[in-house]
Structures are given as C-alpha cells and as structure tokens.
C-alpha cells in the first residue's frame, strides 16, 4: 500500500539534497568545531557556512544565529534567556506576555516561570484564532520583559499579525519573540520585515533533520544561556555542535527559502481544493482557524458525531497519516487548549483532525483523502452513539 503522509506539521521527511549535504560530516569531516587541527577547521567551516545560510534565509546576520537542539529549546532560551539577564534589573523583569494558543514549549515554560514567581498574561484569541491586539497592548506593564507570540499556530494554522505586535513591543520597549516553527518555509519570514527581536525555527519541520533548531537573536538583545557548559554559540548554547544536523538545517532553510515562490502556492491550491471537496461531500463539518489568514498547508476540521482518534486510525488503516491535535499531545487524549481557546463547541472539539500538507503531496493524494474521509466519517457516524436523529 502506498502511504499518504499529510502530517507535515508534526514532522517532515528529510529532503534527499539535505541528507546528501549532511553525509560527509558523519564519517569524513567528523571533527569537533572546538578543535584547532584540520578536522576541527572543517567543522568550523561547515558551521560558518550553515550559519550564513540560515541568516540569509531570514534576512539576519550570521552573528545573530544561535544553533540549538530544536524548537523547544529555542523557545526556552528566548524567554528564559531574557529573564535571566534582566533578573537584577528589578523594575523590568517580573512580567511576561504570551497568548493562550502557544505551543507547549512556550506555555510550559511560562507555567514554570509562574511557579518561581514571575507573572504571565495569556492574551486571548478570537474564534478564528487571531490575537486580540487591544488586549495585548493593554496588558503591557512597566515590568514586562518579553512578549512571546507565535507566528502561526501549529494546530489551526492561524497567522498572527506579528508586525503589529512588533510595533507595540517596540513602542513599549519590550523584547518580542516569535515562534516561527510552523511558518518558516510556508510564508515569508524576514526578521526585519517582521520587526522581531528573537525567532525560533525547528529543522525537522522544514525537511531538515531532527535534533537541530535555531534561535535568531537580534544584535544588541541581551540574553543569558539556560544550559551551562563550554562557551559554544557565543556563550548561549554549550555542548559540542551537532555539525551534520546544523549543516542539514542550513541546507533545508536555503532550499525552503528558494522554493518560497513555488511550494506554498502548490500547497495552497491543494488546501483549498481539499477544503471545498470535503465540505461538498460531508455535512456537519467545521473549518477551524482563519479562512484566509492561515498557513497554506493547514486544514483543521471538526466532524460532529465522530471522535478524532478513531477517525485518524481508520484513515491510517487506509494508509493516510494525519493528526488529531498538536502532535505533542495526541498520545494523551486531553482536550486541545487551542480548540478551547477559540471557543469550539464540545460537540465538535472531539472530532477534530489536522491535515498538514507538504510540498510533495499531489492532487491525486487529496482525491484519495477526500474519498477516504467520506467513507470513514460515514462509518463512524453510523456507529456513533450520538447523531443528528
């Protein structure tokens, strides 16, 4: 059975060009970038080249790029790094602003910070997942250190007005961090256009290898590390650099940037045709998130009278891979905080799936998905203890 993968927001296959770029660094150019000899120099060169590729892909300078182990670590470093630095600056340190629909990497970091005495404001979103800018602006206090609002949501794909947020942050002289883990490669990500001080990216979401990530840190932004060790990455991220991973990440970002004129358009076409055809073929369906201000690869749907995991598994049996909520929490069937934040009815909330497209998905694959969805939803509704009648 040919499998159809439509869970690209969870993770992506490594691009063969990316893998090729990595291979020499496992067995031939395997040096440690801290070593002075020729093996070390090869590693340093690879590191610098990747750093430049990353910088070029987001309009940054090479010295503004910090390599991490992934998106989670980047988010932790951004928020905790700023707070650690401001720790002794008592007038400006106690307060953090974020949204109610951030990824757990941000939300759990914020709960931790609350547990040690910081205060966090969770700004709400509207029913389409768009941040309430007024509330954001009004929540800024004299002791606010950082605003962390994601660029695009991982579950419902809603894109936030980051430029407006950046303007507010700049006006109030507060750092602005954005989690661009889901947006990079799907919509333009330029740190100066966006006006952000910090920005997180995760390699495995953009056809790069797992185990590598980026935190962009605008020059002049004051941070402290939150992992301690040797002085790697400008003192912000110790530990022997994952050279093959970083090389792959650099290549993946370059490729994504190059393809920005093509891939997202393709995904958008698939997305909209998928949505249209599903609505044509099934009743009691809802599209969650914003109709247009959404990632070109995100389709988040709720099917009434159906439970998401069951639907996922029926599709899986047919070789179709999709997700119920954010990949991180799908194993524990707790309600998605994103879906509750947009006020989705309990009726619909349990029957929610996310289809996230990739650049290599085809229209034929979407045909198969539409048909399978129709069959599977039908089957589950027949079995369901609740229904229209």
């Amino acid at each position, binding site marked *: 059975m040919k499998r159809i993968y439509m869970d690209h927001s969870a993770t992506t296959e490594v691009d063969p060009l990316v893998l090729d770029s990595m291979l020499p660094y496992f067995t031939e150019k395997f040096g440690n970038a801290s070593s002075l000899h020729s093996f070390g120099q090869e590693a340093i060169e690879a590191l610098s080249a990747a750093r430049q590729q990353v910088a070029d892909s987001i309009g940054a300078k090479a010295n503004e790029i910090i390599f991490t182990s992934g998106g989670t670590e980047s988010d932790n470093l951004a928020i905790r790094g700023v707070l650690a630095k401001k720790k002794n600056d008592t007038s400006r340190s106690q307060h953090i602003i974020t949204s109610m629909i951030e990824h757990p990497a941000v939300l759990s970091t914020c709960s931790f910070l609350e547990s040690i005495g910081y205060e966090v404001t969770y700004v709400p979103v509207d029913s389409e997942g768009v941040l309430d800018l007024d509330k954001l602006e009004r929540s800024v206090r004299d002791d606010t250190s950082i605003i962390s609002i994601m660029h695009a949501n991982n579950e419902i794909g809603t894109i936030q007005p980051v430029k407006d947020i950046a303007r507010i942050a700049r006006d109030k002289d507060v750092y602005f961090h954005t989690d661009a883990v889901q947006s990079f490669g799907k919509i333009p990500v330029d740190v100066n256009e966006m006006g952000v001080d910090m920005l997180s990216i995760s390699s495995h979401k953009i056809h790069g290898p797992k185990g590598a990530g980026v935190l962009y840190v605008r020059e002049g932004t004051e941070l402290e590390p939150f992992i301690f060790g040797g002085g790697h990455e400008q003192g912000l991220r110790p530990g022997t650099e994952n050279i093959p991973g970083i090389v792959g990440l650099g290549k993946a970002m370059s490729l994504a940037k190059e393809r920005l004129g093509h891939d997202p358009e393709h995904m958008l076409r698939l997305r909209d045709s998928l949505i249209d055809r599903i609505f044509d073929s099934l009743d009691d369906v809802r599209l969650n998130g914003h109709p247009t201000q959404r990632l070109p690869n995100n389709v988040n749907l709720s099917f009434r009278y159906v*439970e998401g995991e*069951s639907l996922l*598994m029926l599709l899986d049996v047919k070789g179709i891979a999709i997700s119920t909520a954010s990949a991180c929490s799908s*194993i524990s*069937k707790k309600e998605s905080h994103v879906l509750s934040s947009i006020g989705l009815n*309990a009726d619909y909330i349990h029957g929610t799936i996310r289809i996230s497209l990739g650049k290599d998905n085809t229209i034929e694959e979407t045909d198969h998905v539409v048909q399978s969805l129709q069959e599977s939803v039908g089957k589950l509704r*027949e*079995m*369901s*203890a609740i229904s229209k009648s």
Partner: protein
Amino acid sequence: MYSRKVIEEFTDPKNVGVIEDADGVGETGSTVDGDIITIYIKVKDEVLEDVRFKTFGCVVAISTSTMVTQLAKGKKIDEALKITNKDVIDALGGLPEDKRRCSGFALAALHKAIEDYKERGTA
C-alpha cells in the same frame, strides 16, 4: 501502540447497531469527555440472545465495545456478569497503559444494560 487485534476489531466491528425492542439498554460516558457507549441487549431464557452497541469514542472505546458484545452474546446473564475487564483486554491482545482507564466503559455499559433488564423485570 495498538495490537493488531485491536485494529482488526476496530476497523471491522461486530454487533454495531441499535436493538429497537431491546430488553435492556445501558449507557456510559458523556459528550463532554468525548465518549459515549450504549449497549443494547435482547434476552431470552436468561441468555443474551443479542448484544449490540453504538459508540462515540476513541479506538479503545470502539474495540472494547465490539469485544464486549462478542464475549457476552450467547452467554447466560450470570456468566456475562463474570466477564472481567482483563478478559476484554486479553481478548484484544492488550491495550496501551495510558488507555486502560477507558477500557472499562463498554463493560460498564453492559452491566447497566443488564441492570436495566433486571429492573424492568421487577417493575
């Protein structure tokens, strides 16, 4: 994560449906939690002649539902009441640890249906 048997039962469930003139009906769960299991029984001479289910819920909810109906069907009520959660799980080739909680819902619904049947009898 799920055993092959769970997936088999889940994708091809037996005894799905409503018994219109059921002798007992039992329901567990709630729409808020996202799981509702209804079990219908038809009894003749204290034997569960027919057992059917309707389930809104996860893979475990559905596969335990169909398994409970299969284990119960044809059994005497007394014997059916002896079916344990472990019997259901074993018959399914095991269930993931973190899904154990929901594995009891279907059996509970059967018990409720039998109770309902008994109550009707005494009414």
